[in-house]
């Protein structure tokens, strides 16, 4: 950046600080820095327009990584912690583990690797919560479904008896943030889950996957840290880990030479793409770094080779213009996971129209993703924080003192 550009930017910042200039996005901002660029539809269109190789797009997919996937990197310490927990459990110590970290830090991928890495002959069962239990009976039913029990159980006692009659196994429960909510009755559901885990911990090894803010709330309100072992934490990647993460994806796409794939040489694509820039923009969040990386690639029309262009930072200034009600809505979604429109209405005690307006406004600002339930007669879509932006949104909510 030239000196005059720096001075202009400093002057603009000072003018904004003293209120002489509005917070509106600068007109000099590049047109491809809109947040909507990160929505799945626009991303797909853009990548298609750029002509990026399908193999690269597939390798850079945001989906959780299955067991043994070569793109699973940078979690050696967590897997060591897991192996140590398995040893303790096999030695007869009742164990309950929690895997926690910020959204998008790879909790689900790690849980799937952990489930696949149980090599002592014990069975493992992975289940992901996909809704909030409404009350005690619903929690018993949901837990039974999650653990793959054929018949629903009548009570907590019956469920505990059945589980204690099974051979020892590892139960991995993902999306634990669904357990924590501000709905009436959610505390009964937490008590059911916690009670069943505690009553069967001598026989089975329980692992709960839970996003960091939901886990903190479990600790604050229910002192869950007293029952669980030291958490296995999945932080965002360091610069070196991010380099390995991107190299693994390029390797998967067949875009790395042999030496680079084995880690002996820095990948050519990453020579062109300074890792420090990606690390700075993404904060080590793999999906966001991958997004910035792909967004900067261009196919040279002359030789068909991939070329990289300077990284373009997304403009998150919309986060500074949110009202307190919008901040609280985002906080609930950031702390407790996706919400149905009806759940938002109950939670915030608003009318149908107010809820609809609030959620749609945030959706239009690309801060929320809406998932329409196919064929749902009640038209009750689900809203979740846009996964790519979860770290930026959480940071802003923290600064606004509504997320803790």
């Amino acid at each position, binding site marked *: 950046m030239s000196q005059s550009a720096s001075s202009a930017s400093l002057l603009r910042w000072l003018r904004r600080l003293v209120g002489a200039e509005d917070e509106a996005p600068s007109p000099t901002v590049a047109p491809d820095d809109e947040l909507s660029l990160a929505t799945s539809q626009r991303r797909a269109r853009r990548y298609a327009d750029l002509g990026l190789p399908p193999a690269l797009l597939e390798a850079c997919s945001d989906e959780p990584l299955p067991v043994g996937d070569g793109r699973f990197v940078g979690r050696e310490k967590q897997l060591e912690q897991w192996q140590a927990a398995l040893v303790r459990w096999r030695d007869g110590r009742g164990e309950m583990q929690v895997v926690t970290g910020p959204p998008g830090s790879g909790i689900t991928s790690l849980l799937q690797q952990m489930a696949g890495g149980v090599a002592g002959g014990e069975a493992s069962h992975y289940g992901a919560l996909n809704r909030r239990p409404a009350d005690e009976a619903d929690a018993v039913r949901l837990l039974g479904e999650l653990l793959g029990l054929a018949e629903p159980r009548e009570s907590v006692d019956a469920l505990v008896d059945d589980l204690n009659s099974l051979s020892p196994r590892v139960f991995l429960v993902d999306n634990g943030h669904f357990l924590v909510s501000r709905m009436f009755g959610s505390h009964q559901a937490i008590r059911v889950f916690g009670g069943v885990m505690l009553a069967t911990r001598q026989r089975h090894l329980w692992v709960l996957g839970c996003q960091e803010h939901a886990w903190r709330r479990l600790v604050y309100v229910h002192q869950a840290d007293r029952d669980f072992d030291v958490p296995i934490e999945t932080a965002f990647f360091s610069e070196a880990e991010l380099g390995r993460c991107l190299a693994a994806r390029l390797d998967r796409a067949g875009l790395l030479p042999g030496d680079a794939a084995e880690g002996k040489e820095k990948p050519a694509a990453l020579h062109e793409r300074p890792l420090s820039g990606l690390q700075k923009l993404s904060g080590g969040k793999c999906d966001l770094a991958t997004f910035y990386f792909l967004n900067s690639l261009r196919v040279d029309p002359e030789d068909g080779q991939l070329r990289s262009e300077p990284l373009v930072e997304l403009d998150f200034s919309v986060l500074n213009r949110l009202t307190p009600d919008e901040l609280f809505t985002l906080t609930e979604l950031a702390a407790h996971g996706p919400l149905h429109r009806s759940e938002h209405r109950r939670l915030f005690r608003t009318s149908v129209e107010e809820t609809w307006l609030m959620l749609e406004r945030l959706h239009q600002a690309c801060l929320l993703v809406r998932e329409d339930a196919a064929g749902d007669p009640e038209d009750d879509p689900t809203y979740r924080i846009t996964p790519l932006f979860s770290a930026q949104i959480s940071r802003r909510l923290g600064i*606004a003192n509504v997320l803790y």
Partner: protein
Amino acid sequence: MEEDTLAQLVDLLSLPRLLHIAAIAALAWVLLHLVHRGLQRLMQRFPRYRLQMGQLFPVIRILTWALVVGYVIFGIVRPPQTIVFAVLGSLGLAIGLAAQGGVRNLLAGIMMIFNPPFRVGDMVRFGGHYGEVTRLDLSVTWLRTLDDNVVMVPNAVVLDNAVANANSGELSEMVVVSIDLPRDVPLRLVRELALDAARSSPYSFLKKPITVLLEARHDLDFLVRVIIKAYVVDVRYERRLASDVTERFLDAFRAVQPDPSAQSAPPAA
């Protein structure tokens, strides 16, 4: 001798010097104004740190004016020692005589800046007023009450009286909600509902404990008073939390209680 001193003083305060002094004072005023606006913007942008930022401005202001006064005396006027001692003597006398009035408030303000009983942004109660401290001036403190009235309290009054500070420099604050119910309510259910109402409010700060107490009372009839003590995530949402918890509790209570009108209705003929 006195005439000499007066002549020296007049000579020292020549027009160019006065203009220079005025320019410096205006510059300091503009600078402080910009710093104040900048801090206000930063406080809006980073609410989590607004109490610390709010505390900065009074210190910056007093230091700036001290520098200005120092520069004016020793950089512009440069009075001889005799004048300095004469002015200091007069000033000391004035402070001594006026200690009951404005100077007293000023001294109290300076003491409060360096040893603050509260900060800008704290929720305090004194002199029968309760509200958020919005500004700490050298001689007065400004409060914004929950009814959106602005109250000005002289600093000397603040220092002379007991001050209740609800959050003491923290952003969270305990909010107490009291609800009276008929005496024959199921107590355990009431307690559970009250806990759930406090936990389920988006404004409650779950990092700190929620307490529910029940108290027997008599007011025309025997009553049960439910006292819910919960922390609000930010003092600015204090009333919102109180109202939200009350609403949630009463709604939940009505949903589980049989309709009282049905109980009191006369039996069908």
